[in-house]
């Protein structure tokens, strides 16, 4: 896999949010405003890049029977470090994201990338995969956050968790429709 297909993969074809449907819990919970979406998206992006890189570095020593445990420890440590740093140097954003930062650990998009990609690939490729997957996740968060914030004033339903599901469903449908169109044309 070269860098270009890795980008297409993360942003469109295998987008964590609208194609793999991974990490929906934080996606729906925090996407009620643009600011929250940006904060959580960036934190997830950094966590994904760091954990992918570290898992790629240790991949030769990790035996298959304990790989999941090791991945989880690495991801949890990465997220804890990001949380502490944000709490120390970016306190405003930390106060907004609060509970959702530790929840990044449970974002299955991260463990999925660790298992499916980073544990088999060299360092640079794994880090780039984290970057593109993270950007794909961030883009979906921003789209949903932006739509909910813009339309939530006139339609308060969108600001509730229900609204998150509805907007996400519309985005997934839109992606499928576009994919189908492209497939029919060729």
């Amino acid at each position, binding site marked *: 896999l070269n860098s270009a297909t890795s980008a297409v993969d993360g942003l469109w074809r295998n987008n964590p949010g609208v194609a793999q449907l991974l990490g929906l819990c934080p996606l729906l919970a925090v996407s009620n405003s643009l600011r929250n979406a940006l904060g959580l998206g960036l934190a997830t992006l950094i966590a994904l890049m760091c954990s992918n890189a570290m898992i790629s570095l240790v991949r030769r020593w990790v035996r298959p029977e304990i790989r999941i*445990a090791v991945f989880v420890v690495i991801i949890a*440590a990465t997220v*804890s470090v990001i949380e*502490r740093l944000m709490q120390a140097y970016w306190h405003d954003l930390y106060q907004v994201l609060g509970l959702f930062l530790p929840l990044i650990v449970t974002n299955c998009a991260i463990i999925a990338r660790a298992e499916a990609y980073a544990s088999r690939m060299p360092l640079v490729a794994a880090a780039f995969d984290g970057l593109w997957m993270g950007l794909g996740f961030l883009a979906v968060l921003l789209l949903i956050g932006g739509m909910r914030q813009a339309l939530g004033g006139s339609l308060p339903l969108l600001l*509730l968790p229900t609204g998150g599901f509805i907007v996400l469903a519309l985005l997934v449908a839109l992606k499928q429709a576009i994919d189908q169109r492209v497939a029919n044309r060729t």
Partner: protein
Amino acid sequence: MDARAYATPLILAAAVGGSVLLLALVQMHTAAPIAAAQLNAERAQLAALLPPLTPADHAAWDAPAAPVAIETGVELLRRFRVSRAGDTLTTVYEVRTSRGYSGAITLQISVMPDGTLRGVRVRSHRETPGLGDPIEIERSNWILGFDRRRLGDPPRERWAVKPDGGDFDALSGATITPRAVVDAVRATLEFDRREAAN
């Protein structure tokens, strides 16, 4: 046992040990900045409820040993007194009400010596995002509706949200949340007057 059986737990232990070491390092370097940032954030929020201070002013928290119930479901947690040359300028009461829609709402209520509200801010709450959270100053100006109010303005029977026949706006889709806040502010003002009379 073959070497492989030993290696597996050792690898796992190494991963855990490495992570613990990393976290300990980060903890060492961030403990002080985090404490400073928390203090700053707390001060910034409080500053909005205080008059401009001079270095000679005396300002300090005092907290009862246990929360004091000032009305059913409303507890005083602690208060912040600012005084200048012996005269109280402002008292900020930190109260917690359990009458919210989902869990406790903690408020900081700033009262001038004559019983007039300087302002109210929400310190923490767990109300429904999008419905109950306009009580936060970051989301709407609703909480500013308390500025300059006191007991008697409005009169006791209209210290309530509009759906209950009072003077304070309700929030669309959420009545319980603003009702809890209005009641807690009114209870605190009454408590403040009782204290002042003593």
